[in-house]
C-alpha cells in the first residue's frame, strides 16, 4: 500500500526545518480545512497535511470496515505516515477526533510524536452518569443522531453542519462543511461517526507522556467546555487555552486565534 496515495499526503513549508508540524483534520472535512492556518508556519516548519481514509481525497479503496471499526486504525495510519516520511521532531495538531487519534499514536508508538495539540477534541462524547462525566450527548441524542443519518444522510448533513459550524453571520462556512460531509459515502460516514461518537478513551489520557496543549472551543455542539477541562485535568503534562469564537471549527472560523494558540505552545 502506497501511504502517500492512501492518505493524499502533502508536504509543504520549509523542508530544511528541524521541526515538523503534522496537521490532521476531523470528521467530515479534509486537509484543506487548515488552509488559513498553514501560511503562518510555512517559513519555520516542515508541514505535513493528509486526508484520513474515508474523507477528502484519500484513496477510498483503502477503506477497510475492519481497520476503521475503531479509531485505532487511524492511529496506525498516523504512525505509517510518520514512518514513511521519516519525520522527526513532530508536533501533531489534531482537530476533533484526530486529536485523540494523535494521542493514541503517541501512546502506541512512544517517541514518534514529541508534542500534541488537541483542537476541539473529546475522549468520549457520551455522558457517563456512573462517574458524572459530561460528554455532551446522552444515549437518546446519539440514537436520534444515527437514526437521522441512516434515514436521510444528505438532509442530516445539511442540518448538522449549521449546528456544528455556528457563525450564522457567515452561512458559507456551514454550507462548505455540509458539502464536504455530503461528499463522503453515507455508509462510510455512518461507520466512522459511530466509531467516534461511541468511543471512550478516558483511561488513555493518563498514559500520555508528552507535552500537550488543549485548545478549547466555545458554544461547541460536539465538545462542551467541561470536556476540555477534563482533558487538562487528566493528561499529565497539559495546559489549556480558549479561543474566542463559537462552533466546532475555530481553525476555519477564527484562524488567527488558533495560530496564536499554536505559536504560544511551540
Amino acid at each position, binding site marked *: 500500500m502506497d501511504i502517500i496515495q492512501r492518505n493524499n499526503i502533502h508536504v509543504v513549508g520549509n523542508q530544511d526545518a528541524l521541526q515538523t508540524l503534522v496537521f490532521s483534520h476531523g470528521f467530515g472535512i479534509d486537509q484543506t480545512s487548515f488552509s488559513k492556518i498553514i501560511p503562518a508556519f510555512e517559513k519555520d516548519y516542515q508541514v505535513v497535511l493528509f486526508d484520513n481514509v474515508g474523507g477528502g481525497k484519500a484513496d477510498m479503496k483503502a477503506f477497510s470496515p475492519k481497520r476503521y471499526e475503531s479509531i485505532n*486504525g487511524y492511529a496506525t495510519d498516523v504512525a505509517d505516515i510518520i514512518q514513511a516520511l521519516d519525520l522527526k521532531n513532530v508536533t501533531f495538531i489534531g482537530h476533533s477526533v484526530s486529536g485523540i487519534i494523535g494521542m493514541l499514536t503517541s501512546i502506541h508508538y512512544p517517541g514518534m510524536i514529541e508534542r500534541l495539540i488537541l483542537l476541539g477534541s473529546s475522549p468520549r462524547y457520551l455522558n457517563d452518569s456512573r462517574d458524572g462525566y459530561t460528554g455532551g450527548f446522552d444515549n437518546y441524542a446519539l440514537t436520534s443522531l444515527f437514526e437521522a443519518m441512516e434515514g436521510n444522510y444528505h438532509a442530516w448533513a445539511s442540518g448538522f453542519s449549521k449546528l456544528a459550524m455556528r457563525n450564522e453571520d457567515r452561512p458559507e462556512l456551514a454550507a462548505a462543511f455540509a458539502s464536504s460531509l455530503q461528499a463522503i459515502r453515507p455508509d462510510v460516514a455512518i461507520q466512522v461517526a459511530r466509531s467516534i461518537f461511541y468511543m471512550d478513551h478516558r483511561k488513555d489520557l493518563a498514559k500520555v507522556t508528552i507535552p500537550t496543549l488543549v485548545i478549547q472551543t466555545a458554544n461547541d455542539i460536539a465538545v462542551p467546555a467541561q470536556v476540555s477541562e477534563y482533558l487538562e485535568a487528566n493528561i499529565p503534562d497539559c495546559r489549556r487555552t480558549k479561543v474566542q469564537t463559537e462552533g466546532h471549527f475555530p481553525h476555519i472560523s477564527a484562524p488567527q486565534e488558533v495560530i496564536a494558540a499554536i505559536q504560544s505552545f511551540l
Partner: protein
Amino acid sequence: MPPYSHSCDYLIFSIVYTVSTWDRKALNFINQTSRWDKDKHISSFLAFSISLVKNLTEANVALQLELEDEATAKVKCASPVHLNDIVMNPEPIRKLLYAQGFKTIYWREIPPGKENVFKEVLPAFSSAVIIPINTTPNNSLLILGWSEPQAFDPEFLECIETMRLRLKEILLQSQQHLYFQRIAIRFSAILHTIPHALVFINNDGFSGWVNQEGATLLELSGPGEQLPAILSEAMTQLRNKALNAADIYKEAVLLFSSPENSISNWIWQMEHKTLQVSCLPVTSPQISGRLWIFE
C-alpha cells in the same frame, strides 16, 4: 554413599522436576480449558484460555492478534487489557509467518528495529513467543512476551506446542460460536421484520419458532423458540375462533392427505379480519418441519 551420589540424585531430581513442571503445566492447561468448556459460557472461553497460558508460562503479556483482512491485524483478548483493539499492519506480520513456515517463533531476544514487527505490543520486552494458529477464514497469532530474558528449553517448547494444539481447537470453537451467533441475530432480525406472522413447527416434536407477528397473532408470551405443543394449541384456538372453522378443518384434512403437502391462499375468516394462510413443508438435510405464514 559417596558425596557425588547426592549431587547426582539432586541433578536427576532437578531434571525430573523440571520436565514434569512443563508437562504438568501443559496438562493443567488442557484440564482447565476442558472444564471451562463444559461449565462456563463460550464467549469468554478464548480470553480465559489466553490468560491461563499467560499465568502458566509466567509471561508479562499475552494476546491474540487476528489477521482480519488485507489491512487489519487486531489485538484481542489481551492481558493487560489496555492493549485490546490496537490495529497493526498485517503485511509485515504475514511475511514473518511465511518466512518461518507458520511454525512457532521463539525469540530469546526480541530483534531490534524493523525486524520486530510487533513493536506496538512488545515495546520493551526481552523475549517473546509467537504462536501462529491457522484457522479459516482468519489466521490468528498468540503472542507472549517476557520482561526478563527467557531460555526456552526443549521442555518449554514441547509444552507450548501442546498448548498450541489445544488453542487451535478453542479458537475454532469460539469463531464458530461467533459466526453462528451473528447468523442467528441477522436471520432473527429479518424474520421479525417481515410483516407476516410466521410459525415454524419442527417435525422432531421438540422445537418450534414464531416471529413477533406470529406471537401477537397467537397471543403467545413472546417471539422465538416455543414448544410445538404450545404452538399447536394456540393455532387450534385461532382456528376455532375463525368464522369458517368448519371449512378450515375440511381443508386441513385435504392438506395433510395431499401429495403436495402444501397450501396457499387459504382463507381464515376471523371476526375483524381475513387471514390469507400458507402452509409449506420445510425440508433440508438438517431440518424438516412445516412453515405457516399468516398474511
